């Protein structure tokens, strides 16, 4: 036998030769030193490749689990394009075969055209959702970003409308899995640097530091970093496609995501995309030339007891992966005296129940004060009216938080605490002025800053858990505006534990699990 070439030795090690040839070669290798050397080399390479293959099984199970949980809930959409064209042709042939005088021919033509338009829209939507996913992924991979940001805010009160437009520069610097955000505003001068565990706000030459436990910062200071961060974790499919638009001289495709998916509002319980009659959405316009967001618009309309607040933020002229000064994203060396440190409990079910209880306890304090004030003002209609206004401002009609919206609740709790403190101060002054009539009210709580911070933190944790349930697609539904504390028959909140089990929190904060589909009276 002549010496086989290296290719055949390689194929032998891969078991790709027939048995007779392989046997003959092995016998030859026993008699030929150079062929034996080739065989040893081929076997070594083969073993290396085999070990390499085995190394790729590491972590397979965990990766599979992760993949399956990341998959969209809906099955892949079938491709309609080819079928669409074929169906269109067959439809056209059939219509043209009808008697030209037949009234059905015109009707059939119109119906076919309508179906075709609808199908085209569906096909375009299916295809363009991929553009959205690519844009989000491009955002995730980007190391830097900078844009112009215009924020328009309006406050609609019964007697007037206050409006303000603020222009600033927003930039982002990403390192590893963390992102730093910088807002620079010239009128009025302000600089806000948001890092994972602290926010630095510089105004008038002084810097305030807001430090919160990691993961809770988003509930304390809301801003574009939080909204855009949500964009990276939101479902891969937008709620609707907006069509094409020209931005500057660039063609872009628009996509809208309902605000409540971004944490802007509670998840609607009526199957709509609106919440509390409000509108909020985030729109991403993806440039066709680089498949990245060229314009991002966020709108929020929030209903308060005193009126409406509306804000619209537009981030335009977005540049990606441009050189930025990393030093600008470092904490300032000198900060002022004001440092607010808040420890927010971790977002757990226990924290949810504790937060609801904390809010209800605060509601009880408010109610006690208001009842006392009402009793004292029994003969004073004007004062009674003022007390009712305070009740409205303090949301005293709803013992539980009327909403768990993380972008609404912190403000509501803060204004409530401020109102409560004001009422207590008024009471203290009145008591001091009428000292001879004063009765000791040992039940009246005193409110200090630390107590307020602690209550706020407990309530924030409740809204954090609500948001966690939203992001985990557990379909939470909250009915706090309609449920009184202690009402064990009422459902205060519920969410999906799994496909067949719903967890319920009742008005008395008891917890129970029920089978999905069980009859349940909702408020």
């Amino acid at each position: 036998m002549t010496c086989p070439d290296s290719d055949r030795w390689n194929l032998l090690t891969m078991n790709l030769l027939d048995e007779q040839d392989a046997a003959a070669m092995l016998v030859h290798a026993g008699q030929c030193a150079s062929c034996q050397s080739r065989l040893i080399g081929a076997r070594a390479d083969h073993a290396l490749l085999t070990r390499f293959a085995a190394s790729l099984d590491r972590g397979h199970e965990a990766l599979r689990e992760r993949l399956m949980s990341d998959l969209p809930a809906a099955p892949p959409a079938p491709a309609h394009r080819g079928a669409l064209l074929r169906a269109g042709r067959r439809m056209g042939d059939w219509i043209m075969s009808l008697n030209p005088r037949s009234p059905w021919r015109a009707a059939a033509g119109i119906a076919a055209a309508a179906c075709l338009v609808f199908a085209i829209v569906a096909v375009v939507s299916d295809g363009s959702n991929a553009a959205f996913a690519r844009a989000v992924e491009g955002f995730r991979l980007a190391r830097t970003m900078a844009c112009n940001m215009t924020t328009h805010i309006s406050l609609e009160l019964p007697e007037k409308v206050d409006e303000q437009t603020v222009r600033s520069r927003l930039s982002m610097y990403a390192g590893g899995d963390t992102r730093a955000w910088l807002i620079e505003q010239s009128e009025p001068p302000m600089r806000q640097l948001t890092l994972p565990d602290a926010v630095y706000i510089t105004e008038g030459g002084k810097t305030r530091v807001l430090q919160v436990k990691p993961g809770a910062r988003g509930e304390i200071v809301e801003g574009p970093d939080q909204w855009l961060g949500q964009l990276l974790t939101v479902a891969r499919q937008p709620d609707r496609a907006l069509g094409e638009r020209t931005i500057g001289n660039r063609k872009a495709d628009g996509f809208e995501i309902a605000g409540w998916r971004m944490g802007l509002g509670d998840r609607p319980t009526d199957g709509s995309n609106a919440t509390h009659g409000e509108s909020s959405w985030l729109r991403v316009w993806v440039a066709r030339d680089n498949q990245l967001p060229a314009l991002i618009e966020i709108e929020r309309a929030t209903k308060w007891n005193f009126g409406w607040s509306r804000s619209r933020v537009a981030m335009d002229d977005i540049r990606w992966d441009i050189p930025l000064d990393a030093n600008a994203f470092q904490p300032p060396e000198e900060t002022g005296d004001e440092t607010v440190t808040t420890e927010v409990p971790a977002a757990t079910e226990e924290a949810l129940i504790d937060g609801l209880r904390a809010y209800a306890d605060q509601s009880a304090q408010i109610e006690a004060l208001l009842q006392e004030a009402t009793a004292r003002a029994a003969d004073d209609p004007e004062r009674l009216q003022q007390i009712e206004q305070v009740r409205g401002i303090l949301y005293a009609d709803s013992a539980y938080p009327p909403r768990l919206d993380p972008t609404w609740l912190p403000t509501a709790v803060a204004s409530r605490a401020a109102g409560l403190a004001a009422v207590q101060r008024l009471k203290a002054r009145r008591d001091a002025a009428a000292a001879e009539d004063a009765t000791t009210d040992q039940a009246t709580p005193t409110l200090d800053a630390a107590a307020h911070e602690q209550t706020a933190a407990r309530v924030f944790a409740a809204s954090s858990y609500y948001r966690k349930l939203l992001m985990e697609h557990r379909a939470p539904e909250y009915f706090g505006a309609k449920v009184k504390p202690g009402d064990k028959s009422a459902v205060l909140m519920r969410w999906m534990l799994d496909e067949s089990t719903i967890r319920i929190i009742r008005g008395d904060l008891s917890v129970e699990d029920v089978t999905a589909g069980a009859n349940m009276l909702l408020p």
Partner: protein
Amino acid sequence: MPESANFSVDDSAHFVTTSTAACNTAARGADVAISDETLVRGVLNGDREAFAELYDRRARLIRGLCLAMTRDADAAADLCQEVFLRAYQRLGSLREPARFIAWLAGIAKQVCREWLRSRARDRRCAVATAGSGEVGPAATERERDDNPVRNEQHARLHAALADLPSNERLALLAFYLQGMDADEARRVVGLSRSGLYRLLASARRRLGRKLQREEVMP
């Protein structure tokens, strides 16, 4: 047991979904080989377990392809996930479900190229800012950590694989990462048996020379 091929497109989606899933489950239990094509059709009918089965079959190859292109084991695992996610989203556009693995390999190539372009952007940013005294984007955790492929031989192998022509690399990985099954590898690369053998031989030859050259060089 009904054949999934006998269902017409007019059947209710629920009936098709449950029946296809039942077929797949029964077939798996009976140790009958199910083709990729059947699994793909199952996924399109809503059978998520069919997609998990596809992943179990093909993840090793895709991960190997990504590793060969990126030379980064952590990135390869992440990119493999991305490949399958995109495949799931685009599965409806796959005209020939029987060519699933070749189609999947094409997605893997695209995803890896995007990753490599992104890395190139990082380097450009770093260079641009370093020249002006500014600091470029911070390195990722992956870059700061030690190379996860601790075995020096594997590192040399990755480098050698990356240098192969893409069709040879695909053939070699398809063979080794799909249980050394020549028929499976043929399906991946879409060649005849002799065509596959020629590619494999050529790939092993190049690989061998590359590995030997690096052994000899200091």
